[in-house]
Structure formats: structure tokens, C-alpha cells
């Protein structure tokens, strides 16, 4: 089927540990990618499929040379790529349309498209005329001539920015084009247009890696599909050999359910959180949601489905257009986290570094940020009380820290997470929102966090858990709300909570499944 000479890209046994923004490996023990074997044939459209965090974007970054693998080799047209050299990848003709836009908002469309390949005219000045013409030609290929190449990118709506991003990638005349969820911001018409261009490029011999969460797109344009799970390539098969959607979903979630969760059924009490007709922005679907004492309620969906946005509105970080949030019988004023905290709510945010901790402050200080008032006398902090409370929660939650005075930034992610949890518990929060509670945490600490959550539920706390890890949702939740396009599309309960059902609703595949 695929002979060696046709091969444009080959990844052999690639492995990469948890890495930071610059691509530097932080922890080899937590693999983001392991045993990755992948090939891309000439003129092929190869779909990458996997859950959030399965490693799709990381794999693509390895191919581009944006991150350097810890082990393994990358070949482009049979030639090994030296470590961490995106310039090399670019000169070999690899272009990427990434999920996060790489456009410069303050430059014009034409300048963005020409970036790095600027035409120098007479006298060493930029040749604007040629640049505008070239940009117009690229946009015309996408039948997007209505976009004015002399406009600044920041003035364009998101869908048009996405098209500019694609035009920019095409302008490099790549031999390999990587499209990372290119259609998430596009309308159906624009998607059709994009697919037309994709087929055109394919007939011109361009190979493409296509990442998507929309299952029907696989059948529309895919040649082969590779399923990733937990940073591993599970299987690669030609699309026409895929029997049905269910099979692919099964591959994505796997069947192993480790006994990591220590989940037990807890007595359920009164409603702790009631959300009624909550509308974030005019035009969104109204959301209704209830979490009762002793319950762990999962909030599932793909990235961008509006889960974190919903949680932030409930907690009062962001305001909402209309609706009502009630906590332990009290209606909360919108946009007021202090009222939410006073009513007994706590929030363990997804981005620990930016939203959860104050990195320069000590473990004890971070532990007491919410209960500071209670620990003070006329505004003076009682250092003794603070130490006592912090020591109490450090030992209860088994936080591994050198001392209470150690700056929290030197703790591991799992231990930071425990301090953040301790911060809310010490403030007597009885309704906790966990947003991606175990992201970037190693397995041992994960298990400890799950144990704490179950323990809290047993004592009558109510928990709303946002998670992109299906196993976590399935393993921990008493009920699951599934969100898509900023609305709740389904609610599952008890035995009906299963990974494939959740994925189907989250990815909009329920119609496909019913059809097949």
C-alpha cells in the first residue's frame, strides 16, 4: 500500500516527556508521547484522531520541529531531521495551520501572508503592490476574495482569520500541510470551500495531516486515520476499512479502566448548586444544572465547548446575560466571586500557575488566602494560627513540602493542587468546582486527588468536575452533563455513563451513529 519511496514523513519510536511552553522537557517520567510510529504518504490525507490530551498537537509539533523528542527519529523524505530545527522543516516544505492562530494581529492580511517571505522592491523597501497581489491570489484560491488583503488581521472575524491562516500556509507552497482543527471556527459553506482546496492540493501531490474532532469529516476527506490514546499511536487504518464510528470511538477511549478512582456511592442530600436558564452571551443555549450534596457531577465536552466558561460564570468570575445561580438556597449576584465564596463555593481552576497559586508566596500563605480574615485580629494576621491551620491541612492532604515557608512554586503540580484544595477546605467550602483537577499531574498524585474528592463527597460536599479525560469523567461521576457549542446537549446518569456515549454527544456524532 505505502511503499518506502512514497513516504514523505516517518516518525520512529518517538517519545517526549511533559514539556513547557518553550518545548523543554520538564519531566521524562510523564510521557506526552511514547512509542509513536507514524507515516505520511505522498498525496495522502492522514487524519489524526484522539481525545483531548491524547497527544495529537504534540505529535504535530514534533514533525514541525517545534519540540524536540527525547527519543526516536523524525524523517522527512527519508532524511533525518536534526533536533529542534523548525527552519529545516520549513525548508523541507512543511507548513502548519495551527489551532492557536499564529497571525500577527496588528499586521495586514497581506503582510501576514507574506511574513518571512517579504518581497523587497526598489531601494530596499517592501514591495507592497506585489505583496497585496500575491495575498489576493492566495485568498482567491480559497474563494475568499471578499477578504481585503490590506485590512489589519485583528479587525477580521475569527472565521476569516482562520482562512487567512490557511492562505498563509498555502503561500509557502508546502509539500506537507498540517491542519490542526481548521474547521472549528468555520461555517458549513467555508468548510466545503476548504475541502475543495484540500482536494485540489491533494491532486497536486501535497500530503496532509488533518486533526479534527468532527467525525464526519474523516469520511469526507480522509485517506487513512491514526488513532492516538494517552500519547501512543493505537492503530492506523485506511478510512474505507473503518466499519463504523463506534469502532473508532472504542479505539480512542480504550477498554482499560484502571481502578484509580476509589469511587464509592455516597448518600445524596439536598441541592447544593442550582443553575437555571443560565445564558452567557445572548444567543447561547440556556443551561440548567443541579449538583446535590454528596454528588460528584461531571461536566464533559471537547475543548471550547464552554465548560470552563460556564464554571466561571457560576463562580462569579465572569458575568452572564441572564439566568440564575443558587448555592445552598441563596441566589448569587452575578459577577461576584466573594458572594460565591461566602455562600460556600470554592474553585480549583484549570490553570494552576495563572489562577490557582501565587508563586512567590509560601505554602502557608497560599493555603490561607481565602480564610485570611478568619485567621486575623483587627486586620492583623495571626502567624501562629496560620501556621497551625496550614500544618493541619498539609498533614491531612499529605502535601510534600520542605517546610510551610517554602515558596509554592517549588512544589510539584500534584502538591500545588493539594494546597489549592486545602485553601478551599480550610475556608469551609462545601461546593467545589474542579476544573481539570489532574491535568499535568503524575499518576500517584492523581490517585490521591481522586481519593480526596471521594472523601469530600462522603462527608456531604458537592462537587462539579470539569474534565477532558474520559476515564476520569466515567470513573468519578455520579451524573454527567455533556456540553457542545456552549450548551448542554445530554445528561447521563448511573449505568448509562460510558465513554463512547459521552464522546458521541461531545463530538456531535450521535446523528452519525444513529444513521449507521
Amino acid at each position, binding site marked *: 500500500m505505502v511503499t518506502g519511496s512514497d513516504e514523505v514523513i516517518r516518525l520512529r519510536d518517538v517519545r517526549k516527556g511533559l514539556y513547557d511552553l518553550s518545548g523543554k522537557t520538564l519531566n521524562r517520567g510523564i510521557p506526552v508521547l511514547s512509542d509513536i510510529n507514524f507515516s505520511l504518504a505522498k498525496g495522502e490525507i492522514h487524519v489524526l484522531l484522539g481525545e483531548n490530551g491524547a497527544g495529537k498537537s504534540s505529535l504535530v509539533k514534533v514533525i514541525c520541529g517545534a519540540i524536540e523528542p527525547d527519543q526516536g527519529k523524525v524523517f522527512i523524505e527519508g532524511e533525518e531531521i536534526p533536533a529542534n530545527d523548525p527552519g529545516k522543516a520549513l525548508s523541507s516544505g512543511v507548513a502548519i495551520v495551527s489551532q492557536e492562530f499564529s497571525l500577527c494581529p496588528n499586521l495586514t492580511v497581506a503582510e501576514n501572508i507574506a511574513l518571512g517571505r517579504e518581497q523587497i522592491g526598489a531601494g530596499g523597501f517592501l514591495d507592497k503592490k506585489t505583496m497585496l497581489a500575491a495575498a489576493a491570489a492566495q485568498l482567491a484560491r480559497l474563494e475568499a476574495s471578499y477578504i481585503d488583503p490590506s485590512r489589519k488581521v485583528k479587525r477580521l472575524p475569527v472565521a476569516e482569520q482562520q482562512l487567512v491562516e490557511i492562505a498563509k500556509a498555502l503561500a509557502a507552497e508546502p509539500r506537507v500541510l498540517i491542519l490542526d482543527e481548521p474547521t472549528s471556527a468555520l461555517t458549513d459553506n467555508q468548510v466545503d470551500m476548504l475541502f475543495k482546496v484540500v482536494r485540489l492540493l491533494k491532486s497536486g501531490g501535497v500530503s496532509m495531516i488533518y486533526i479534527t474532532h468532527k467525525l464526519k469529516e474523516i469520511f469526507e476527506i480522509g485517506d487513512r486515520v491514526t488513532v492516538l490514546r494517552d500519547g501512543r499511536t493505537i492503530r492506523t487504518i485506511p478510512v474505507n476499512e473503518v466499519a463504523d464510528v463506534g469502532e473508532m470511538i472504542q479505539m480512542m477511549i480504550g477498554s482499560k479502566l484502571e481502578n484509580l478512582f476509589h469511587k464509592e456511592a455516597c448518600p445524596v442530600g439536598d441541592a447544593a448548586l442550582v443553575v437555571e436558564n443560565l445564558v452567557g452571551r445572548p444567543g447561547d443555549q440556556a443551561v440548567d444544572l443541579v449538583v446535590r450534596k454528596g454528588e460528584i457531577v461531571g461536566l464533559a465536552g471537547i475543548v471550547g465547548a464552554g465548560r470552563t466558561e460556564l464554571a466561571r460564570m457560576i463562580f462569579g468570575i465572569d458575568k452572564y446575560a441572564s439566568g440564575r445561580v443558587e448555592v445552598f438556597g441563596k441566589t448569587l449576584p452575578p459577577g461576584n*466571586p*466573594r458572594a460565591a*465564596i461566602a455562600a460556600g463555593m470554592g474553585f480549583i481552576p484549570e490553570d494552576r500557575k495563572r489562577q490557582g*497559586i501565587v508563586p512567590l*508566596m509560601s505554602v502557608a500563605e497560599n493555603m490561607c488566602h*481565602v480564610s485570611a480574615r478568619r485567621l486575623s485580629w483587627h*486586620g492583623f*494576621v495571626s502567624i501562629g494560627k496560620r501556621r497551625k491551620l496550614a500544618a493541619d491541612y498539609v498533614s491531612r492532604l499529605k502535601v510534600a513540602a520542605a517546610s510551610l515557608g*517554602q515558596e509554592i512554586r517549588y512544589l510539584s503540580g500534584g502538591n500545588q493542587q493539594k494546597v489549592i484544595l486545602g485553601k478551599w477546605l480550610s475556608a469551609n467550602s462545601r461546593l467545589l468546582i474542579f476544573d481539570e483537577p489532574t491535568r499535568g499531574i503524575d499518576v500517584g498524585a492523581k490517585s490521591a486527588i481522586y481519593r480526596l474528592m471521594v472523601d469530600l463527597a462522603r462527608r456531604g460536599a458537592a462537587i462539579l468536575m470539569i474534565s477532558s479525560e474520559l476515564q476520569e469523567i466515567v470513573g468519578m461521576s455520579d451524573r454527567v452533563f455533556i456540553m457542545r457549542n456552549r450548551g448542554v446537549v445530554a445528561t447521563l446518569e448511573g449505568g448509562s455513563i460510558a465513554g463512547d456515549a459521552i464522546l458521541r454527544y461531545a463530538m456531535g456524532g450521535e446523528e452519525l451513529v444513529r444513521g449507521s
Partner: protein
Amino acid sequence: MATALKRILSFKEAPIVFLILVVALLCGVFVPNFLTAANLVNILSQSATVGIMAIGITLVIISGSGGIDLSAGSILGVSSIVMAMTIIPPELYRDTAAMLVLPNDYWVIFKALVFCMGVGMFCGFLNGAMVAWVGLPPFIATLAMMTAARGLAAYISAGIPTYGLPTSLVWVGQNSLWFVPVPVALMIALAVIVHIILTRTTYGMSLLAVGGNRETSRFCGMNVKGTLISVYVICGLFAAVGGVILSARSNQAHPDAGIGYELSAISAAVLGGTSMMGGSGGVLGAVLGAVFLSLIQNPINLLNIPVAYMKPIMGALIVIAVLLDQWRKKQSIGD
């Protein structure tokens, strides 16, 4: 030995203390008349105005996200003019270029001090409102205030400096409590009070938290905007106090008083180990930084060295102090 050094390095004031000792030692050996009580007291007195301003500016820098107050010098100018004009009868103000002799009317002096500090706090409040409510970058907001307040000082004084303040006010600038000059005593007292507020109160904790991570502070239900506004108000107040001391020391109110002082105060804060990134720093260090700035100024005065030689050295010393501080932080990570 190593542990003792580590312990010393765990104090953020360590580098500035070290620099002060080194410079003082060098001056003691090479500069005649340096090591006299009068000269050392003089160095401290000269640092008081900048030192008190630096306390306020340190709080603003700690508040994070580019927190800075470029208007402190101008606020000093306008508030001291307001003070002088409250005391001096209008008919005398513009008529005479000679030294005034005014009675010690305590009620008038009290009113003048209240107006002076009120103006300082009001300017600070406007700074804070522009930063917290309007969302302007602190650099821009306080740059605007710097220009506006200086213009206001020139307008209400018609650009005329006034000489001769009541003797009880001049006492604040020129006399001593036992052997400590009043401005120095005031600087030390304010530094200690603010140090305690910063390290021992819930307000201080929320300021460090807001400066260290604004998002986290919001998630913890802290009053982020109120905290931001408060530091600019305090900074304005301390600039006004600096204005009182400068006027009292020089026995005059000048519409151009305090030009460039904000930069010295910012230097003092940085020398004292306050990070421009926000979230960490201390006011004791800022005061030491101000003392250091006046210390290296001293041999210039004693030896009649042209200022042009000393300014580049001051610039270099600021860089050295910051490098020392970065080195200190690396060393004290260990535990």
C-alpha cells in the same frame, strides 16, 4: 559557614546592606571628614524625602502588572505648593520676593497639612482609578498625572517660589529629636509601620497576592481593584509627606520641587530588592536604597567632584545591586 551565609542571603535587604557597608568603608578610608557624626547624620537627612517616597512607590511596584508611579515627584510639588498657599495670606504671596516671617498659627498649619496630604491622596486616587477602573497601564496613567500635577503646581503658584514658612513647620525639616533629625525619625517610623502592614496584616497579604498573581487573587475573592487603588493613594500620601519635609528643610515651597525624585525613589525601591515584576519586595530595603543613593552622593559634595563623574557610577551601581539581588535569589533557593 555556608549555612550562615545562606541565612544572611535569605534576607532581601542583604545586597543593599552589603553595598552600603562597602561604599561607607571606602569613603571612610579615602574621603576626609566622611566619618564624622555630623556628616553621617547629614547623609541620613538627605535621604529622607526620597526614602519616604520610595516606601509608597515600593507598594505600587509590589502591586504588579507594571505598577509604577512616575507622578510622585509632581505630586510632591503640587502638594507642597498647596500647603504653602494655605499658610501664606494671598496678599503676601505674590508681592514679595523677600523672606517672609509668619506667625505659628497652629490651626492654619494643621489645615495646611490636611490640604497638602489630601491633594496627594486625591492625585493618587486618580492614578489608581485610571489603573484599576479605566484599565490604563500604570506607566501611562502616572505619566499623565506627572505632567498634569506639575502644571497645576505652576498654575496655582503662578510659577513663583515662596521663602519663609512658620518656624514650627521648619522645625520638622531642620531639627532633631535628641540626636535623630526629625525627617529621619519620620522616615524610619513610616518604614516600620508600613513594613508591619505589609508583612503582618491581611491587607499586606492581599497586596502581595494581587501583585504576585492577579487572577489567583480574583479566584480567592480578594478585592483586587480596591487594593490597586489603595496603593496609589498611599503613594500619593507619602509623596505629600515628602513634600512637607522638603519644604520644611529648605524653608520654601517651589513649584518645581521634586522634579526627578520619582526616579530616585524607584531606584531606591529596586536597590532595596523589590522586583519590578511585582509580588515581592520590602519597604525597609527601599529606605536603605534611598540611604545608599544619598551616601554615594556624599563624597561628591565633600571632595567637590563634578557630578558628571558620579552619575555614571550611580547607574552602574543600580545594575550591580540588581545583579546581586538575582544572585542572592538563586543562592537562597536551595532549601
